[in-house]
């Protein structure tokens, strides 16, 4: 429900231009964001969305161009300026202090005097008012660290509202949410809009744009390439605009031809340092030639499962059999020896596990294979072979820019991931462990990575795919297992799965959100 045309837009960007060295991050970007609307900004990674929002929020200064807030030219040099103008930001990674209560988190930076008591009382009153008005459903006295992710995100929104933000920027807000939590977030955004707030939603998920926005800007290569009324476009057109060519959101693949069992897991159990059970008698098998998807809200044991299977952690009980070789807690194998068995691992956390951000691409492309005879002589490394290998991976997987000596951190998320996938697939593994292969990866790269996974399936590899993106699981998996609280709570064939069924299974046994386990 955009406001009347006569009122000045909440935010107007005029000819914003920004370069980082040779990278032209924003090219002559102009946008007009109507008051009381939800406006989406979509684009691939590196399209310039984040830079643009960082300029709007005062992290960067534009090289040229101007920003108008409520019709008046504004100089935004810091987050403080942005807040003063009523612009609030909900970051992708929350900025919350876990041991503090919601009230304490919200008050931080606006304590109201030397003694907390008075400030606390008035803050509490204000929070209650916001609660009545927007229905965020959070208890001010709850400790933030104990809350589910969705509720923590609502605390971030609350923080912005408490500071009087009438314009809210949300950066990839749904990455960590269950479908139900996502729905709840969208309800809140619509309430905000109804109360006259302006919302800017940055995302690369087109479904969300279609579900909740009034207008949408598409960015590509630093520039705005399209501006549409959401009602007058569709996901296909937007996807095409984003990548500049037709993409298939559905991956084309033939039926699976499952062969022999390559990976068998029996009663795998793991306790963390505090004694909490993170894996609870997990059993399943994956055959060569099939993709087994593991769906679940993040933090329900999937990460630990991958780590145990990759040899990073030893299980406390149970056993793993890879191609007939048994691995038990009394005879664990470290990641190097799991690789020897033909197990490759594309880890969930590419920045901390998959590569070393300060290393050159050649060095990251060697990770895990540093003692391979092809790359290490008796004493010295074979730098020639290492560099050729990296260049070959880059060619084959279209890693851009093709600069083997560039620091890994200088590649975009999608290209970093392509390099990791290339490295892990280079040896035609028998078992492929994949965690969140396309998190923070742009559409073009997603399609490419998905195709690679399917190709390796067809070549007889057993692929275990862990993802919190249901779209991804449903596009790729031949069978779907659902994990919750460290257990496998259900298995569905791909043909029987839909998002509702999976969503309810994922929320199974999670009393906190009050969702009944009805599936």
């Amino acid at each position: 429900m955009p406001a009347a045309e006569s009122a000045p837009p909440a935010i107007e960007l005029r000819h914003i231009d920004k370069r980082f060295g040779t990278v032209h991050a924003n090219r002559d970007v102009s946008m007009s964001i109507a008051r009381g609307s939800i406006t989406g900004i979509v684009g691939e990674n590196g399209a310039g969305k984040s830079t643009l929002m960082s300029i709007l929020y005062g992290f960067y200064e534009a090289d040229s161009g101007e920003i108008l807030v409520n019709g008046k030219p504004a100089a935004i040099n810091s987050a403080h300026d942005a807040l003063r103008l009523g612009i609030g930001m909900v970051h992708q990674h929350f900025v919350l202090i876990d041991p503090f209560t919601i009230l304490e988190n919200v008050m931080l930076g606006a304590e109201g005097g030397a003694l907390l008591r008075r400030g606390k009382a008035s803050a509490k009153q204000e929070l209650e008012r916001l609660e009545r008005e927007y229905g965020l459903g959070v208890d001010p006295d709850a400790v933030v660290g104990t809350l589910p992710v969705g509720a923590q995100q609502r605390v971030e929104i609350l923080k912005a509202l408490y500071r009087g933000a009438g314009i809210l920027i949300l950066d990839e807000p749904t990455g960590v949410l269950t479908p139900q939590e996502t729905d709840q977030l969208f309800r809140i955004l619509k309430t905000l809009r109804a109360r006259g707030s302006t919302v800017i939603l940055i995302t690369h998920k087109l479904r969300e744009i279609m579900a909740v926005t009034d207008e949408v800007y598409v960015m590509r290569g630093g520039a705005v390439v399209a501006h549409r009324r959401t009602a007058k476009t569709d996901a296909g057109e937007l996807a095409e605009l984003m990548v500049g060519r037709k993409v298939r959101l559905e991956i084309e693949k033939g039926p699976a031809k499952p062969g022999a069992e390559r990976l068998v897991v029996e009663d795998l159990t793991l306790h963390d340092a505090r004694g909490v059970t993170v894996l609870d008698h997990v059993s399943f098998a994956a055959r060569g030639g099939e993709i087994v998807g593991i769906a679940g809200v993040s933090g329900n044991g999937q990460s630990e499962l991958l780590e145990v299977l990759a040899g990073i952690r030893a299980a406390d009980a149970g056993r793993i059999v890879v191609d007939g070789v048994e691995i038990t807690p009394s005879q664990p194998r470290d990641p190097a020896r799991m690789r020897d068995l033909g197990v490759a691992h594309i880890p969930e956390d590419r920045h901390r596990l998959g590569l070393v951000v300060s290393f050159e691409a050649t060095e990251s492309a060697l990770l895990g294979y540093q003692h391979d005879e092809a790359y290490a002589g008796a004493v010295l490394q074979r730098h020639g072979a290492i560099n050729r290998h990296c260049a070959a991976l880059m060619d084959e997987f279209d890693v851009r820019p093709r600069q083997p000596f560039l620091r890994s951190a200088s590649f975009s998320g999608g290209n970093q991931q392509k390099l990791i996938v290339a490295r892990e697939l280079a040896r035609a593994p028998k078992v492929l462990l994949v965690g969140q292969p396309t998190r923070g990866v742009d559409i073009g790269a997603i399609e490419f990575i998905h195709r690679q996974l399917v190709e390796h399936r067809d070549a007889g590899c057993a692929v275990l795919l862990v993802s919190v993106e249901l779209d991804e699981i449903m596009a790729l998996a031949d069978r779907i297992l659902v994990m919750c609280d460290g257990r496998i709570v259900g298995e569905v064939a791909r043909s029987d799965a839909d998002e509702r069924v999976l969503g309810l299974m994922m929320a199974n046994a999670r009393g906190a959100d009050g969702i009944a386990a009805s599936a």
Partner: protein
Amino acid sequence: MRVPLPRWADMALIPVANVVLALFAAGLIVLIIGENPLKAVRIMVAGALGDSEGVGYTLYYATNYIFTGLAVAVAFHAGLFNIGGEGQAYLGGLGVGLVLLAFDRVLPLAALIPLAVLAAALFGAAWAFIPAYLQAYRGSHIVITTIMFNFLASALMVYLMVNVLIAPHQMSPESRELAPGAWLPQVKPVLAAIGVTVARSPLNLSFLLALLACVGVWAYLWHTPWGYELRTVGQSERAAVYAGVKPGRIIVVAMLVSGALAGFVGVNEIMGVHHRLLLNFNLGYGFTGIAVALMGRNHPVGVVLAGLLFGILSQGGAELAFEIPAITPEMIVVIQGLIILFSGALANFSRPFFERVFAATARA
């Protein structure tokens, strides 16, 4: 607005700017005590580089700084802060002394040199092993334990020198002098043999050992799979585990190498200069090594350059204290301290300025 600095500026410009700032601050202090800073600089440079004697002393000091600087750098690449160079150098000297006292009258120099080098490495590494083990497998912080081991080394050496190794019939806690056949050749006679005349100085062949150590460290860190693993652990322990590396093992190995490098100070001091075991020959080199590594960006080439700078400061400073009595040896320590302050604690002090300059020129 700022941009990240180009690599050359990061490697060269900032360290040089830090030294210039430090010298400027030192100049102000010289000015305050009523002396002419330019004259002081002239005396320092002339004293350190003006003649072959000065150069000899400068390189002799630099030898020690290169050893301890490399020691800190290797540990740093594994993500460890080795503050224990002082103690490891002390123990390295003990190892050299013990081996030479045992064999100096039995074995020829050609056999004694490798033995002494090996002993220095073993003793230094052994002294680093316990803190390394505690860090790797028991979670004790390496900074705390290596500092404590400096005190332990000091106490151990006093005990040994006073009660065990002291030469009979004398008061000062020193061992007997080594047989001249066990002395590491100094540079003066070596150069004289090929017809080059230089003044006498303590500079000896361990300078070559220092340069060899640089090449070795460079090859180890950047050209072997083990060095690759060491750097991986230093950058990201989780990525190292993912790559099948055992971080505990790497921590121990890195500290052993680091301790061995620091131990080489003993070769220079005991075999090359003092020709006997004594107390406090290690004083200050371990700690200054931290500054040398910081300033040298933990790269062997940088460590050599920074080691030379600190060698110049030590030798030129001694000369300065001699020429201008108002500038006491303590003042020289202050100047060194300023350089450590500016290139260590304030290493990034000038960075924002240069980033703005580069941003402005990039835009222009």
